């Protein structure tokens, strides 16, 4: 018996996007560090910041209002227009 049913999904095909171009050097690069607001994320990022600065990068720190929600659009836009690369830090 042939059964016909209705598709329960969103019927969308994910759009394929190329990854952003990797940076070749940290020297002179602006690196964003995004703290997702989990405990001790700042401790981890402080260390990452000093390591990046030793290699000549400029570091800009960002923080999400809460780790339970996606980063606000404005924050994502700011990071993407200010930084050459971003490191998003988990913690716990």
């Amino acid at each position: 018996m042939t059964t016909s049913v209705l598709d329960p999904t969103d019927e969308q095909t994910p759009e394929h996007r190329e990854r952003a171009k990797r940076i070749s050097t940290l020297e002179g690069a602006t690196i964003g560090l995004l703290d997702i607001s989990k405990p001790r994320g700042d401790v981890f990022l402080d260390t990452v910041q000093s390591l990046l600065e030793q290699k000549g990068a400029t570091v800009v720190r960002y923080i999400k209002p809460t780790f339970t929600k996606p980063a606000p659009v404005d924050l994502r836009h700011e990071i993407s227009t200010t930084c050459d690369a971003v490191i998003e830090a988990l913690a716990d």
Partner: protein
Amino acid sequence: MGNNRPKLANGFVAFVKKDCPTCELIVPVLEHLTESQVLRTIFTQDDPSFPNLPITSDDTSLEVSFLHEIETVPTLLKIQDGVEVDRTVGWSQETWKAFLGIDNLGPGNIRPYSPGCGSLSVDPDLQGILQKKYGSGVASREVVFASAEDEFEAMYDRGWSDGLPLIPPTIERVKAMLAGSERRPDEVIAVVPPNLVDLTVEKVAINAVMAGCKPEYLPVVITALETACTDQFNMHGLLATTMPVGPVIFINGPIRKSIGMNSGMNLLGQGNRANSTIGRAVQLTIRNVGGGRPGEVDRATHGSPAKYGLCFAEDEEGSPWPSYAQDLGFSANQNTVTLFPGEGPRMIVDQLSRSPDELARSLAKGIIGNIHPKLVMGFDAILIIGPEHASRFAEAGWTKDQVNEEIINHSIRETDELIRGADGISEGLPEVFAGSTLPKLRPGGGLIILHGGGAAGLFSATIGGWITGDKGSIYQTREITL
């Protein structure tokens, strides 16, 4: 579909579109077949003046093409007594001669074969509109299982299931489901995470069929999803968290009885269709429409049976107090759904307390263990007080507010016992909280008290919450829209 097909005149009819090189190629043939009165009609899909012939008929609405299931242009149909008896697709000089039963197709210098193009009536971008206008009345894509496929296995294979069997969402079942709500099938009721997809009533209905819902449950499912997909409730966070939480749903108002929900014996357990399927429909919708699947965006470390869908009704009739919805200002005639970000239920046994005060102390002790005994204030809780426990309070004349306040008072802890390192346990509050007291649950909303359960058993049940407030999830109540 067959009965709705527009009747066609007997003879041969063709379907073409201008944006098809093959159709352009065979215009001289079509001219010859028109002049020689072999063809009765040429339906054109994209340009009413193509080909410019007296028998060309405008089908830019695609109604005729769609209802005759034209998949390729050009297609020739042979019509007898108003119905199709044969067809040929694409252009092949020899096939057309045989099909039309003639030797002369006019100009002889045309390429003898060309496969043709896709019919506009099967353009995937137009399917939703055409299906709704001329077809089944639903916009969703039809998925046809092969004759050798087991439909239940096929649905598992496509990843639609939460692990339990699904009811096949046939068009007939989905239409019957849609009749359970007065809302239009194409109404977008929410943007569902994590993929932030517009959620239509129709997609909810499809998932509700699969979950096993009856049509009269659909308004509850819809309102629950509207509530789940708000920034305040934060379904995205509930889904993505490593904690074992989901939308715990409870219902107030007359609809509990009219759809046969269980608020009594075993209300959190198996055996009642509405309780078992409403929450499941919500979770299946988030899975299938939103794309929220375990191991993907759903990162739960352990998960919980509650994540299949935990839904129940408050026992209003047997309660000594006004219902939860009435506490919020809704009337007894209004139906509401409340979503609470919670884990699975856990019982609190107290078979010996007889006074309300000692029972309040006892229930507070039971709740203190939620999440972790040393973590306080950040997580709300539901307490479903069983009838035998409730009667202890009612006989002493305690109001529900009083019970709530006393339980929170009795949950107050010395913070020296809660800070990190206290009791030989690193988990706990930061050192700055030392030397004070804090309740387990935040006063003024940290504890939801409901009445429910079987008549026998000196027990209550608690459901621990997830991170409360703007940083996590704020529980919500809405009136159910029928």
